């Protein structure tokens, strides 16, 4: 895969907006995407992440703003000239072509010699481990295999940027985790810029170099998975990425992750209790317990307890004290 040009793959998105009639689907988005980066656009449905991706791909016109690659605007370049690979939602494989023909399509429409196409397709088949399926039609493949064909097809012409639109949405949970690892592995090997759209926060956390959290067409926060999880700036980010308790303290709203709270039976010795309450419910998830505690009349606090730590089992209705370290709670910059 040495044919990716070293300078390619830097994308600069400036003040990008998209209107559908009166509805503003993407609102003044600014993003600098570095070459070779695995960037995830994460947000609930309707947050504008797919619209943003479609504008980058060239399938949607830009209402205002600009997209630049390596300093040059690509806004006026049609989709077929942009040379961006794309893995579509539902894969969009050509149903009447074999796996080999699907993967070789990009090169054959570029009128490359047959021997070159054959060699390249073989290389891609090996990359996605589908050597034995070259002559099958997409309809004869499982969902996971179709996904890999779509990936191989999108990478066949060594694009500087690969766009992925919820590529794992149709797979079952177990397979999804497996394919996540494969995707990450392929990304690390070929050095292509990946722009990945998903609404699945676990997917985003485990794969991305950086995550862009989107809400109502705007960028809510950008950062590495660690930054976003440990230092969310808003209530939306804290609750969308993982779970969070919110505490209205004297200096403003704080987010507190459920797993960072220590719980003990009321009256037991230890650090002074920050909050006290009564256990309302306990749900068992195998590796951990989710405990909901009523604090006062209106507030409920969620605490995740590692199962193996739960040596003195809690019971519903029990009075408990809660403690946490100062570093555990994060003051939110925005509401």
């Amino acid at each position, binding site marked *: 895969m040495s044919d990716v040009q070293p300078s390619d793959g830097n994308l600069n998105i400036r003040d990008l907006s998209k209107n559908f009639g009166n509805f503003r689907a993407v609102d003044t988005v600014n993003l600098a995407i570095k070459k070779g980066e695995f960037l995830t656009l994460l947000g609930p449905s309707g947050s504008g992440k797919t619209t943003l991706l479609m504008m980058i*791909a060239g*399938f949607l016109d830009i209402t205002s703003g600009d997209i630049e690659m390596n300093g040059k605007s690509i806004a006026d370049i*049609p*989709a*077929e*000239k*942009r*040379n*961006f*690979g*794309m893995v*579509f*939602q*539902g894969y*969009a*494989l*050509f*149903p*009447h072509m074999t796996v080999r023909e699907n993967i070789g*399509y*990009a090169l054959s*429409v*570029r009128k490359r010699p047959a021997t070159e196409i054959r060699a390249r397709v073989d290389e891609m088949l090996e990359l996605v481990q589908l050597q034995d399926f070259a002559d099958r039609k997409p*309809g004869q493949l499982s969902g996971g295999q179709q996904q890999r064909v779509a990936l191989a*097809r*999108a990478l*066949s*012409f060594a694009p500087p940027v690969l766009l992925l639109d919820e590529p794992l949405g149709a797979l079952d949970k177990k397979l999804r985790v497996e394919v996540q690892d494969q995707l990450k592995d392929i990304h690390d090997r070929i050095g292509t810029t990946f722009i990945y759209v998903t609404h699945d926060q676990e997917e985003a956390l485990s794969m991305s170099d950086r995550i862009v959290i989107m809400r109502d067409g705007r960028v809510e926060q950008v950062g590495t998975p660690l930054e976003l999880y440990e230092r969310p700036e808003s209530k939306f980010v804290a609750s969308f990425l993982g779970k969070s308790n919110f505490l209205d303290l004297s200096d403003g709203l704080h987010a507190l992750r459920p797993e960072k709270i220590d719980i003990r039976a009321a009256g037991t010795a230890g650090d002074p209790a920050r909050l006290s309450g009564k256990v309302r419910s306990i749900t068992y998830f195998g590796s951990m317990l989710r405990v909901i505690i009523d604090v006062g009349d209106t507030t409920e606090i969620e605490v995740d307890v590692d199962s193996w730590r739960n040596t003195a089992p809690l019971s519903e209705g029990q009075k408990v004290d809660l403690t946490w370290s100062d570093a555990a709670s994060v003051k939110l910059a925005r509401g």
Partner: protein
Amino acid sequence: MKTLRKYVKPGWFLVAPFLVIIAAFYLGPILNILWLSVTDPTPGFGNYRALYESDALVRIIWTTVRVCIITTLFSVLFGYVIAYAMVHAHENKRNLMLGLLLVSFWISILVRTFSWLMLLGRNGLVNNTLETVGIISEPIAFMRNELGVLIGMVHYMLPYAVLPLLVNMQTLDMRVMNASRNLGASGAQTFWHIYLPLTTPGLVASTLLVFILSLGFYVTPAVLGGGKVLMVAEYIYVQLLVTLQWGTAAMLAALMLFGVLSLLYVMSRFMKVSTVFGGTSS
């Protein structure tokens, strides 16, 4: 009843009345025609032998096949363009187009045929206008020849060509076309490599439908052909009611029946006929 149920599935009792009706009023007459074709006026294959011996008969069949092939070709070509425009038009416009299509579908074939005479006849609107303006000095012979028959038949067949194509095109996943563009294919390449192959079932369906319906055409050739374009259906009518040679008429009817059936058989060798008519492919 109980013992009978052991041998016959109860479902058959439900469809039995309809089977009887179909056998009595549909299969019966067809068998009767086949029977007539080998027994009237004398038993044997004399009626079929006429296919070798009578130049007139061969010419009629050739005319029919030629007119039908040309009609099918143009109907499907225009139908493809119209269906494509409808699928890709805005929803309001699509409904308007579908409405116009169905209106022409519902108007009686006689009305439609005669209105072509009004438009394109010797003293029709087009010829009169062109003469008055001075572009032509003699009326152009649009009607009362094979061209007239073709114009009338293509016009009549258009809705039949459009509808199967429309259904086919509406089920296509446009993401597949986007994928083709994304992979660097131009619009023309996407059409030839992706769109056209994916609309083949619709093309086959509308071709079959138009061709089979064209074979039995009677009114349009009779009116617009001006007696110069004699096709099988009209000839059958003449044999039945004028010359009373029922055997020849039955032979021609049987010939058309077998022609259509063998056409379907050939198609079925290439693809599942049920998918063409809307069944699932798996």
